[in-house]
């Protein structure tokens, strides 16, 4: 999968390139709007990550020109200004999704996956990891064949973590996807932490191999320990 990243801030650009390369994408970095536009119109990409504030030609302008030329590839817009008008302008110009800076990398990578998957049937993820098994129909969970009692919230939390197994999810993503909190300002980090701690007790305490891990400063992940 080839991704074009148009970002003028060198540190951010390099970090995005490295992070996405680590996820096995083929990343090209364009530090200016002009270069980004040139690359986008001359080479095939599967997705473009486009900063809205660029020196010279800004993101909205580039995007609307690309769209006018009939380019259909998914575009993820990065905006520094948390203003409704910006979003409207970006979406009007033809962005498929937008992310407000500063964002968590986990969030960016999740959005990119969603955009690349768009339109294709979702490959069934077996909700199973190590000896943990989830049944979405009966909403039951078992570890080592032993049934675990989870509250509804804990079940949703575990489901989200297992669906994203191997990847780090931020508290913000959990707040939005599991708690359905749309605003970043609602302080439920403590709430999330308590739920994760309880979940960890129920899932991992009886087992030697831990599944639920905290990545300090970033979020949580479910993975098998190496």
């Amino acid at each position, binding site marked *: 999968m080839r991704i074009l990243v148009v970002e003028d801030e060198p540190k951010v650009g390099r970090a995005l390139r490295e992070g996405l390369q680590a996820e096995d994408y083929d990343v090209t970095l364009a530090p200016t709007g002009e270069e980004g536009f040139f690359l986008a119109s001359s080479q095939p990409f599967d997705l473009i990550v486009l900063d809205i504030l660029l020196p010279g030609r800004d993101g909205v302008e580039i995007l609307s020109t690309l769209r006018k030329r009939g380019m259909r590839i998914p575009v993820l817009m990065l905006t520094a200004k948390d203003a409704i008008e910006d979003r409207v302008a970006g979406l009007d110009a033809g962005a498929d999704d937008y992310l407000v800076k500063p964002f968590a990398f986990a969030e960016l990578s999740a959005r990119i996956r969603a955009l690349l998957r768009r339109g294709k049937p979702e490959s069934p993820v077996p909700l199973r990891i190590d000896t943990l098994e989830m049944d979405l129909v009966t909403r039951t969970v078992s570890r080592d064949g032993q049934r675990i009692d989870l509250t509804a919230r804990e079940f949703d939390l575990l489901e989200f973590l297992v669906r994203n197994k191997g990847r780090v999810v931020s508290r913000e993503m959990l707040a939005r996807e599991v708690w359905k909190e749309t*605003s*970043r300002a*609602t302080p*439920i980090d403590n709430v999330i932490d308590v739920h994760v701690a*309880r979940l960890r007790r129920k899932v991992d305490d009886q087992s030697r191999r831990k599944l639920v891990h905290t990545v*300090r*400063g970033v979020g949580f992940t479910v993975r098998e320990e190496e």
Partner: protein
Amino acid sequence: MSAFGRLSIRGRLTLLYVALLSLVLVLYAGGAAAFLLRNLREQLDHRLNEDVETIEGLLALDNNGHIHLMTENLDEDARDFQPHFLEAWSGTGSVLYRSPQLGEGDLGAPPTPAGNPGSIGQRSIRLADGTRVRIVGRRHSINGTPVRLRLGLSEEPLWREFWELVSALAIGLPIALLLIGSTGYVVARRALRPLDSMAKRAEKITAERLGERLPIGNPNDELGHLGRVFNETLGRLERSFDQLRRFTADASHELRTPLTAIRSVGEVSLQRTGDAEYYRDIVGSMLEEANRLTRLVDSLLTMSRADAGRIQLQYSEFPLLDLAKEAASVIEVLAEEKNQNMSVEGDHGVVVRGDRLILRQALINLLDNAVKYSPESGRIEIRVGSDVGEAFVDVRDSGPGIPAEHRSKVFERFYRVDESIQGGGWGRSWAVNFGVGGPCSWGAS
């Protein structure tokens, strides 16, 4: 912009009413002159008619068929008939008599026989030498012979009188206008003088010196009104500038804390060597502070947008108890961790209209605080009800409460009572009132 537009207001005002006044005066003078002319003509015509009758009696036909004017019969007073212009025509169009004053001239073309309307009645003509003459035509018969008479009187005295009036007006009018104009200018300048002093004062007002106010002469006139409105605007500006200053100071203070943490954690970790786990921990700790910064910037942005009135509230109607239960269910888990007892009760019938998301956020914040500041095994009671048309959510916790001297500041942003204050018992009570715009008040017990 035209030359008129470049003038000052008082200049324009003066010019305008001088122009208007000139128009009125010229019309008036013209009317008066025309009226005078008509009156004088009427008098002249009246005299002509009288004179023609007198003259008819003085005419006599001699044997040669010539007409004579028998002025010798007249008394002394009437002798000055002499300057009259007189013509007598026969029915066939030959001149029977022409007064000597006319010389070689005449009083117009020969009258046509019977019924030429131009030859009967009054009209004004001009003689060959330029003298304007008013003439009257008459049919007459002397001893049975039909005769046409034309009697003329000079109009010159009449015109002289007319022009005298016109010239008197022409001299007086500009003087009057000049007088009125200059008086008007002075009056306008005096009336607008407060504007000058207001402008002078306004020049001194800057963002740093918003305390200045415009001087107000007469608060009841238009300028006073303007000044008052301007002063009120200045007051509002001053308040919002103060707010902005406070906001900037608060914001930089709040941002400094996580920034300092990031910096010192980074610096200290670079001074020693550790293993990967150590650095992972350091980076994680710095990221935690970065998250704090992100959240702070977010809320600062929200606040400044709210201050600017750019937040659109999404109104809907919903039962308040549902909202309270929802907020409590989110926070409940925190209370459980501290063995606190959180209860929600109230009237399900209390329906409010407001922005559900924002109210939910406010309530979650409030409950989060209640849990944070209540001791282990404390109680948090949430009660929903209504009082005289106002719905309320009453949150009672068992925290230390807010000391009386801090209560007025509770709604200030970033405000936090010194955390070292400890106390016990039934501490804080909050009542958040949701009106239409969501006025917020609280009571303490």
